């Protein structure tokens, strides 16, 4: 697990900071001070003049150069190319972009018009527009050749309407090669004009991930706690695909949805076969999922056969299907090729049992929050002589 937040060990400002989003650069990489660049000073590096902010590990530089922030230990992994946000007084720090990460998730808002039983990021009603403002700044700071995925999450990002589309247009114009993935409940796209607005961004590297939790309204509406959600969401998907947009369907597997996975897969395969991919997601045991643990938690072993059948059904029909957030030891071996190491590295953990496991490096492991509830069936996989499906084992040994 990697920390994304911290308090400055020391801060010395000549005046309150004029901005809060900073791209880190180093003396070797620097090509002259540019607005929004902060110079990262590793041990012994001599500071170049002209930067609005200097960031370092060395408390002794305090007072000897302009605006200076000393990083806490847990953020000292930062390197040139990463983006840091600061409070105006320079004390509170947050990592917004790590250029070496496979994917960066950018939270755009915590507001939401759903209240999913298992939400890992429970909605808050307060105005938090500063989050999308920082996202605009982030995109402006990224180099034009950026090709790591930008993930926009919420809350519900589409609550911003046109402002979200403006952000997506900025991505298309400034970082055209970067895949841009937005997570949404898809409801607003049931409005033709809204779907047209998204499609008008016209970025082939753009994909939108939309959840479906049932094959008919009652179950889906119950899971997201909103009447009419299923009809809006499915209509929204149809509208997006009709406009040539790439849609991913996400199915979070928990106690309420697990018994119905095959029905959901059948529904998708007959009614939405044109989606880009379908992802079955394991639970992240924080937020409402933890509060509702009795109604949400199910041991993945208890839906092993159902998950196998649902994935197989979609895959055989030619729909790209993936399994996220599941440990290899709790899913059917035949599903290993579908399992993705999907948990963001900064919230990724392993179980003590995992240290003995021969497929540890192919396994997604756990969310750090999993310690609230582990499967009772986490078992180290040991190589077998008569393994009928050795693909992953042989590749790692």
């Amino acid at each position, binding site marked *: 697990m990697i920390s994304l937040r911290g308090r400055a060990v020391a801060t010395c400002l000549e005046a309150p900071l004029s901005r809060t989003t900073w791209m880190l650069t180093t003396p070797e990489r620097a090509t002259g001070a540019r607005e929004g660049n902060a110079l990262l000073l590793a041990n012994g590096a001599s500071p170049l003049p002209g930067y609005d902010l200097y960031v370092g590990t060395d408390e002794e530089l305090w007072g000897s150069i302009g605006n200076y922030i000393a990083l806490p230990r847990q953020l000292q992994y930062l390197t040139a190319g990463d983006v840091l946000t600061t409070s105006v007084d320079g004390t509170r720090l947050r990592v917004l972009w790590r250029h070496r990460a496979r994917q960066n998730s950018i939270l755009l808002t915590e507001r939401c018009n759903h209240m999913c039983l298992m939400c890992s990021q429970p909605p808050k009603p307060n105005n938090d527009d500063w989050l999308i403002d920082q996202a605009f700044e982030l995109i402006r700071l990224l180099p034009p050749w950026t090709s790591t995925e930008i993930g926009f999450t919420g809350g519900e990002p589409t609550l911003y309407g046109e402002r979200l589309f403006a952000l997506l247009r900025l991505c298309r114009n400034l970082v055209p090669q970067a895949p841009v993935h937005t997570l949404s409940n898809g409801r607003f796209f049931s409005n033709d004009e809204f779907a047209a607005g998204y499609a008008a961004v016209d970025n082939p590297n753009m994909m939108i991930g939309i959840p479906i939790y049932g094959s008919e309204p009652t179950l889906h509406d119950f899971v997201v706690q909103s009447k009419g959600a299923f009809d809006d969401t499915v209509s929204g998907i149809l509208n997006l695909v009709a406009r040539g947009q790439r849609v991913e369907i996400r199915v979070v597997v928990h106690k309420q949805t697990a018994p119905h996975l095959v029905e959901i897969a059948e529904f998708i395969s007959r009614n939405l076969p044109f989606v880009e991919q379908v992802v079955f997601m394991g639970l992240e045991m924080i937020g409402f999922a933890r509060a509702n643990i009795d109604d949400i938690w199910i041991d993945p072993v208890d839906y092993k056969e159902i998950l196998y059948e649902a994935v197989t*059904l979609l895959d055989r029909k030619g729909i790209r299907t993936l399994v996220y957030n599941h440990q290899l030891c709790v899913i059917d071996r035949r599903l290993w090729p579908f399992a993705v190491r999907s948990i963001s590295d900064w919230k990724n953990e392993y179980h003590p049992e995992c240290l003995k496991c021969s497929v540890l490096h192919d396994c997604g492991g756990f969310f750090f929050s999993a310690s609230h509830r582990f499967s009772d069936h986490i078992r180290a996989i040991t190589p077998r002589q008569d393994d009928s499906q050795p693909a992953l084992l042989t590749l790692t040994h």
Partner: protein
Amino acid sequence: MLEFAEQTAYEPAAGVWELLPFRFERFSMNRVLLTNMVGEHMFVTPRELDDIVSRRLPTNSTLVRQLRSKHIIRQPDERLPVTLLALKTRTRLSRLAEFTSLHMFVVSLRCEHSCPYCQVSRQSSDKAHFDMSEATAERALEMVFESPSDNIKIEFQGGEPLLNFGLIERIVRDAEVLNRHFEKRLTFVIATNLALLDDRILDFCGDHDIFISTSLDGPADLHNRNRPRPGGDSWERTVDGIRRVRETLGADRVSALMTTTAASLDRPKEVIDCYLQNGISNVFLRPLSPYGFAIKTKSHAAYDVDRWLSFYEEGLDYILELNARGTPVTEVYAAIVLKKMLTNDDPGYVDLTSPAGIGIRAIVYNYDGDVYASDEGRMLAEMGDTTFRLGNLHENSYEEIMLSDALLNPLDESFALSAPMCSDCAFEPYCGADPVFHQATQGDFVGRKPLSAFCSRNMGVFRLLLDKYESDPAAREVFLGWAGR
């Protein structure tokens, strides 16, 4: 549960349900098959069926959830189920807009084989009388490119088309020149017994990307008994031809079809093994058609539908067993039906579409310039019934042929959604309209279905496939793969 509403809060206010179009079929004592408008299926008990039709359903239950998922019932104000049904229906019928894509040229009626089940061929040296002329071929090509379809497949038929290979070369070259203007996706197939294959023919097929479709009835003794030729070496020549096409043009360039005869019925495994031994993993277990010499020589009457169905089931079981052992063999007829059962795609197989495929999916240009609505229609004409003769290339225009009563009447009358017993059959979405078969066997386009071998054979196949899909998880996985190919 902390500030969260229970599931009941998201159920409809009242158990008032409207029925969307669906059909049912009693499957066994305790199981009834339901299919929705587009062929999505589920099984219920007779009592549940009773509850559905008398609309005694609760606001939510496992049954209600399944019925809503499959768009069989809806709440009075719900629009999404109808939107989705419309989308699926449109998808299923989308190939109709494409119009005729398969164009068959009977370049010669002559053949050096003398198969007793053959519908049409002539053993004759009278080249002038039974070969297609250049003028006829030219006129047929004009017709081909009048079709609005973006995909054009020209299939050379016989007799044995290789007996008039010079004309095939000419047609292929002319079609390629014409297509520089029309820019369609143009493909060629030669349906041949391969006995006359030589290097010149192979080279030409390689240069012009021509596919080969051949006949392989099974092991040597069976094949040679079914397909006599001077020297009695039909099987040896066919098998050698398949090998040469695979090696020089590519394994995907050759496919084979079998004709089932009474002699085949006890030997499905041997037939399938013979295909595999020759590198062909698509096996089409076909019934014998009721046309041509097949009727004259009583081959057709030699076995009934039940006998064929048990042959089919034995073959299918063997193919499933092979799949389970890691050999991916496909039974082509099942694959076509399963695509219709499990997806919204209609593969457009001429015998299993409604409206029928005659004329509007496939059309035949006979050696003498006559135009037929289907290959079987031309065979029927050889037996003296010219119902499906649409006109002649030298006498009629494209419009006259495509708008002729000879084409429109059978299309209209046989349309399964309005045909007696088809319109309320639960299998209708999987089946098709075959006016030629019913004209041949019953003398009208629709036929009485209880007497129709087409109907009982297909019902048997549908029941068999659904039964295996529901009861055998391994078969289900294989079937899903076939549906998705």
